């Protein structure tokens, strides 16, 4: 881990970056923001850990917990809401056995996330499965997709 962190530190110095670029690099390398990485940088750069944490929790692009291999994003915008996106999420969590308040399965295979609006309200409800847009999603279609990923 330390090696990767050193690399990030080097680019930070070279490009005179800021906290956000460091956090983005950490996120890119580890898939989330590990606590040790933040503490390591806090020490190296004399920037308080609380500051890193504050920035990391402010932006939804940063994740504090490890995320799953497959990421399913369900749109929670108004149009999708009307078209029943909440039901999709509930069923997904049931199907994948994700406990309440969590987003990721215990085997780190799936992460279910909500997003405020994808901007494709015409094909609501919208779901992104590993960055592929699926419009007019239904529960049956969703379960089929998950089964497909699971069998791969």
């Amino acid at each position, binding site marked *: 881990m330390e090696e990767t962190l050193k690399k990030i530190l080097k680019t930070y110095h070279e490009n005179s970056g800021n906290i956000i670029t460091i956090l983005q690099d950490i996120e890119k390398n580890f898939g989330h923001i590990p606590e040790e990485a933040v503490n390591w940088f*806090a020490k190296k750069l004399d920037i308080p*850990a*609380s*500051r*890193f*944490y504050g920035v990391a*929790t*402010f932006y939804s692009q940063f994740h504090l917990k490890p995320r799953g291999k497959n990421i399913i994003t369900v749109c929670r915008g108004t149009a999708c809401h009307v078209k029943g996106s909440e039901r999709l999420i509930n069923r997904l969590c049931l199907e994948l056995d994700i406990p309440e308040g969590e987003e990721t399965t215990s085997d780190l295979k799936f992460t279910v996330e909500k997003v405020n609006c994808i901007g494709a309200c015409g094909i609501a409800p919208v779901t992104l499965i590993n960055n592929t847009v699926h419009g007019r999603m239904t529960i049956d279609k969703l379960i089929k997709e998950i089964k497909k990923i699971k069998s791969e």
Partner: protein
Amino acid sequence: MEKKVKLQIDGKEVIAPEGMNLLDAGHLVDVFIPNLCYLKGMRGFGACRLCLVEVEGLKSPVIACNTKVREGMVVHTQTEKVRNIRRFILDLILSIHPLDCMTCTKAGICKLQEYAYEYELKNTSFIKKKMGYPIDQINPFIRRDPEYCILCGRCVRVCKEQGTNVLDFIGRGINAEIGTAYNKSLRESGCTFCGSCVDACPVNALPEADRWRKGREWEYTKIPSVCLFCGNGCDILISVKDGGIQKINTGEKPGSTKKYICAYGRFGYDYIEDRTRITTPLKRENDTLKETTWKEALSIIAAKLKEAGNETGFISTAGITNEDALALKRFAKNVVKTKNFDTTLSLYSDIHSMKDSQSALITNSDLIILIGLNPSQWSRVLPALDASIRKRVNRGGKLLVITSADIKIEEAATLTLKGDEITILKAIVKSLIDKGLKADIQLENAVKDAVVTEDIEKAAKLVEEAQNPVIFTSPSLFDSSANLTIIKGKVIAVGFESNSRGVALIGLTTEGKSYSDMVNKGMKVLYVIGEVPLNARPSHTDFLIVQTSHFTELAEQADIVLPSTTQYETEGTIIDYLGRLKKLNRAIDPIGTSKTHRDIFVAISKIMKSPLKKPSENEINKLIKVKPKLSFNPFIRRDGFEIAPREFIESINASVLRGRRLAWLKEAVAAIAV
């Protein structure tokens, strides 16, 4: 002279210095603009939006905390429009704030309560939301209850400004809260428990942990005093109810963060009723200490002192008041007729550097030079100096650190020079002379051979550009540091005890045998005043008298123990490290039969038939009015003052640190360090 501008606030004419904000300008003419997030002395933050005011000629209201005064401005702070906006904001805040003022500990000094009253809000007109955040109360100092938090950010800003950086805004929007990194408890977050956030919080989100049911704010008698635990001698404000101390705050109005006190000063007071407190005189009988009367104890002491005469030795802490110090000196010299008196000051400083230190204010200086000192809020060595310097730096001051060790405050420094302090100082002086600044001929000769490097050049430039540089130095480097003041600035040697400068000016300093001599070789009769860093009875000591407030290891080996008062039970004056005369006031009655040091000396002197008068205010004032004389001195480091500051401060406060809460702190710090 700074430029002044004329403006009008609520019909009153105001003449305010340029650059001042409207909120402060209003204060000048007693117009108080409501606010929840403003901290006097810091830049306006604009979080609460309560200070909105109308300015004629502007379309929409502006926030007073972040709007600067301008010539001819006409400001209205109480128009219907801004009052309605304020009422709306308060209405919103109340929708996420518990409405339990009847039992709330902050009632009476809560700003939200005050404004809700003024704007006639009994309840919120919105749906109430409860966030359900957990309360952090696993430490005995600060209770952090985010449910009450109104997100004004005051705690975040004080914590940041003094360099502790524990708190920050976490999350965003409705989910925003104040928290620590990774939502850890304060105990695990690196918090020093100074409680600055407690003073800053306008509501009940950060009260003292034990504050609940310890009396309402308006029942307290507030007594300003001074903390004597370390060399900073900070102002404190003691809240007293029913004859007991209920809490201690900084000696500053709530909502101001000008002053700082550490965990010792704020929370250490519970040691006064610790079970180790001595309440009656004790005398040794068959190897055990037994209770006795004052009369008997004093007459035994009087007889012993008379017998020993000039073979008596007095050793004292330098954390005693001027009055006690003068009484002790006179008692030793005129009554017992011995020159053997000394204080712990002689362990870390000579007299000259204490006497000739100048007076300065950190808040007025634009460059602070720290030489050979390691102040730290974390190890609680001169924590207020550390906090004040960091605050100054965050408000635009510069910091030059000259040190031979690795120290934490470097992280706040504009420039750090590592190496032998004297070599560096010489080089800086040389560089300054090369730049054409005036010095005297002796100084010029002394630095002839110094080598000026690039870093030295940078440091010299800082000094050259500064208007009011202030040098804080360890006493052993005082002469070398003071040479810089021949060119520019002021110099202050910082002692480790609250009245280091006072005892030096009063003259309670080495005349006969020194402190170390008396401790190493012993005296026929040794009289110990206060808590000193000495745990074993010195050999060749026939009779040991210990006059202190709490049982110490040394007291257990004494022949007579006299109970003295603590800093909260006595009055008097001290001179703090910045050279200011500060007054202690008696907050509570002495516990048990304990007496002040000076009362004890007066009582013994009466028995010895050479009665001593209590020192008067005039006498003290005359003695401490000395103009420091500074002239060229050779660049040398004085030897013999190599004590470990942290261990020293902990040993002179051993009984304070045994108090319930500070003992917890010590354990917690040790547990996290592992």
